[in-house]
């Protein structure tokens, strides 16, 4: 279980409770000292502070996104069934994916969650408001969470499911059928439409953003890779938070809703479960919450096996997709897309079994074997298995993110011209809105692609190796033991990167 998520938002205090009496997810202690540099963006850019403090800020970024998203869904239903000529497929699976994994996550953390249209309707119903926080007045209708008032049932999310296993399974499940929805707009409509419906229902039934925290398959990998991001929402001064009696960031106020992500923002030390909605910045009476710029890959602690397996899943899928979609082996693509290729259901089931076995069994087993060897080599007084396992599994986070960027680059560079075409003719109905509808397919720098991919993977490897040795120091104080522990893990990371490079270069 990832401890940063408060599984029981119901235990949020009443306004009269004292901070000391609040049974939060851990002791109300100041977060550990910061590693690396920080730039307080809200101090540096006052206009940004002004912007994020507006009550309409999130609505203003969601609204255009929602509109475009619904237009894309309409294109999926009524537009051309040809994937690369339908804006839904091109913008969601090529443009959005590339933007998300290559720009938003590394630089803006979970900024996508700020503007995500999936929970829009659910949150609207749940809050009964689009921009203005509702206060729970005595006798008012609606459930009370903190001091804000909510509509719907506001049930507690089951404790047994308060982890990201559902997201892991959901993401892997979706990826199993990727060949179907990546090529067929109508299937993409079903997938995305279902996510909106599930999000809406869960917002009505459960408290706050239970869907985003525990169910949304996109949110799962965003939570993992946002650890590497260069942006963070944090408190400026821990002392101010300690002395604060309002705890508005948690319980809400008339300036902002209590954290919908079940975080206690003032003691947040990782990006994983912060959806960057900026409510804490608005609600803090001491102006103590801010957005900061920081070095890449600053959060370095996985807190549960669910997060470790998410890292295995993401890395495995980057590897599998590189083989299926970028590799020269049409056989694999045929298996994935069995209805189109004429391969039987049993062939697809075999493919699905392999796709699931790789991240759930094969890679974790190989990783565990290397980890076991590393511990044996290092010898005396190791920390518990779980602790060192999670510290090392973290190495797959920046490595996985860069592997995904390397995988996604060709998507945009090779297929980018389809973006221009579908911008002008989103439904394939013969429009030419921006006079780019007849742009010929023209890949950008295809001859340089392997070199760029190798460069990205090399950066990933350097960062990872550096981190392996640094993290090994948290397990073994003795330099010799630290080195002996780190070497097998470094070898594993190098082997993984070599495998990717071999795939891309050969």
């Amino acid at each position, binding site marked *: 279980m990832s401890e940063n998520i408060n599984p029981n938002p119901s235990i949020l205090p009443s306004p009269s409770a004292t901070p000391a009496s609040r049974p939060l997810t851990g002791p109300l202690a100041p977060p550990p000292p910061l590693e690396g540099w920080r730039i307080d963006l809200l101090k540096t850019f006052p206009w940004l502070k002004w912007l994020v403090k507006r*009550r*309409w800020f999130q*609505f203003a970024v969601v*609204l*255009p996104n*929602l*509109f*475009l*998203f*619904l*237009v894309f*869904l*309409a*294109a999926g239903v*009524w537009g*051309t*069934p*040809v*994937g*690369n*000529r*339908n804006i839904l497929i091109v913008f969601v699976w090529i443009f959005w994916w590339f933007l998300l994994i290559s720009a938003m996550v590394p630089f803006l953390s979970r900024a996508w969650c700020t503007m995500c249209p999936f929970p*829009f309707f659910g949150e*609207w119903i749940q809050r009964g*408001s*689009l*921009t*203005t926080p509702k206060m729970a007045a005595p006798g008012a209708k609606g459930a009370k969470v903190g001091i804000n008032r909510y509509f719907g049932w506001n049930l507690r999310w089951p404790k047994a499911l308060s982890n990201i296993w559902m997201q892991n399974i959901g993401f892997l499940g979706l990826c199993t059928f990727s060949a179907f929805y990546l090529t*067929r707009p*109508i299937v993409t409509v079903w997938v995305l439409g279902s996510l909106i419906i599930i999000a809406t229902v869960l917002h009505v039934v459960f408290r706050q953003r239970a869907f985003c925290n525990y169910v949304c398959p996109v949110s799962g990998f965003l939570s993992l890779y946002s650890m590497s991001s260069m942006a963070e929402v944090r408190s400026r001064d821990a002392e101010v938070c300690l002395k604060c009696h309002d705890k508005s960031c948690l319980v809400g106020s008339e300036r902002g809703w209590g954290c919908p992500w079940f975080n206690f923002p003032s003691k947040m030390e990782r990006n994983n479960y912060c959806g960057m909605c900026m409510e804490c910045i608005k609600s803090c009476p001491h102006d103590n919450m801010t957005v900061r710029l920081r070095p890449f890959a600053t959060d370095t602690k996985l807190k549960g096996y669910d997060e470790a397996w998410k890292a295995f899943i993401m890395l495995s899928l980057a590897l599998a997709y590189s083989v299926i979609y970028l590799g020269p082996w049409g056989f694999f693509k045929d298996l994935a897309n069995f209805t189109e290729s004429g391969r039987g259901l049993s062939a697809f089931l075999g493919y699905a079994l392999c796709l699931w076995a790789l991240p759930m069994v094969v890679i974790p087993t190989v990783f565990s074997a290397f980890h076991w060897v590393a511990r044996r080599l290092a010898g005396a007084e190791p920390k518990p298995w779980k602790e060192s396992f999670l510290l090392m599994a973290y190495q797959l986070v920046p490595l996985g993110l860069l592997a995904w960027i390397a995988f996604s680059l060709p998507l945009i560079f090779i297929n980018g011209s389809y973006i221009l*075409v579908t911008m002008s*003719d*989103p*439904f*394939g*109905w*013969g*429009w030419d809105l921006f006079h780019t*509808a007849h742009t010929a397919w023209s890949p950008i720098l295809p001859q340089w692609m392997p070199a760029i991919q190798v460069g990205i993977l090399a950066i990933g490897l350097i960062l990872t190796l550096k981190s392996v040795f640094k993290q090994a120091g948290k397990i073994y104080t003795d330099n010799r033991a630290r080195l002996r522990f780190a070497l097998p893990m470094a070898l594993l990371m190098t082997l993984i990167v070599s495998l990717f490079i071999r795939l891309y270069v050969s």
Partner: protein
Amino acid sequence: MKTREWLSTILALAAVIGSVALPFWYEGRRAASAPERTITLTGVASSGIWTEDPVTGDNYRKNSFKPARIRLEKGESVRLVLRSADVTHRFYMPELGVGPVELVPGHTEEVHFKADREGVFNYYCTEICGDCHFHMRGFLTVGNAADPAAAAAACDGTHRESPPAFSSLAEEGRYWFESKGCVSCHGAGGTGGVPNFNYARGTVPALNTLASKLSLESKSEVEAFTQALGQKEGLAKDKPAPGVSNWALSYAQYQSVLRTIQGGSPPLKADPKGPEPPLFMPAWKEKLGLDQINSIIAYLVSQQKFEEHTGWGM
């Protein structure tokens, strides 16, 4: 505060409704603003037809569509919206100066023309687009010109299944002749007559006189030749078919026909500076085996009409 909330609610509702309504409004406005009559034609390779029926989503996989029947008034201006349901096609209507227009699946092309003369005008797909490609021919009629006989039936995909059992070689030949689309250009029974723009002979040659070209002078000679064609070892120069009077010539002509079917033949242009004729004889050697080609030859020679000799007349 209340104003902001109301405004947000209105904007949210506008986004939801507008996201669906706007595209349809724009499309409707676009169609309404076109001064000409709009005709939408979609090429469906799997059925080998051009259709005016709506082809949406994946319905081309399971639905059958009616071939387009277009009749225009003389002098009428037309906005022709061209689409492909499945694979790349190339629309060409040479006599009215339309095309060739490449039709990439999922993309819509528009051409404009004026039906300034009466007649029947053929249009074709000039991009080999699949097993039913040779069926992809249609026509439009301008003015009071009479509709021509219906074009060959749409490709129904039966050729993709295993062929039925045949009672004779000629019957098998008819099956391949029709299912492979030869019938689309050469006409039912090989009667020919399909117009081919800028082709030296004007229309696709008839094949129902093939027996004469093979120097087969009578029905009995055709039967003897067909019997020899149906033998396992096929025809051989040094094994004359009993009953064929001029075997050497028949065999040489047969070889020539075989070469044309297997290797194809480019059409001779009427105007050397003009465009390529849209119809041409493709090479069939990769698509048809020797046995199948022999069966087609057997079918075509069986179509020859011989005058019955009574013994007194000529």
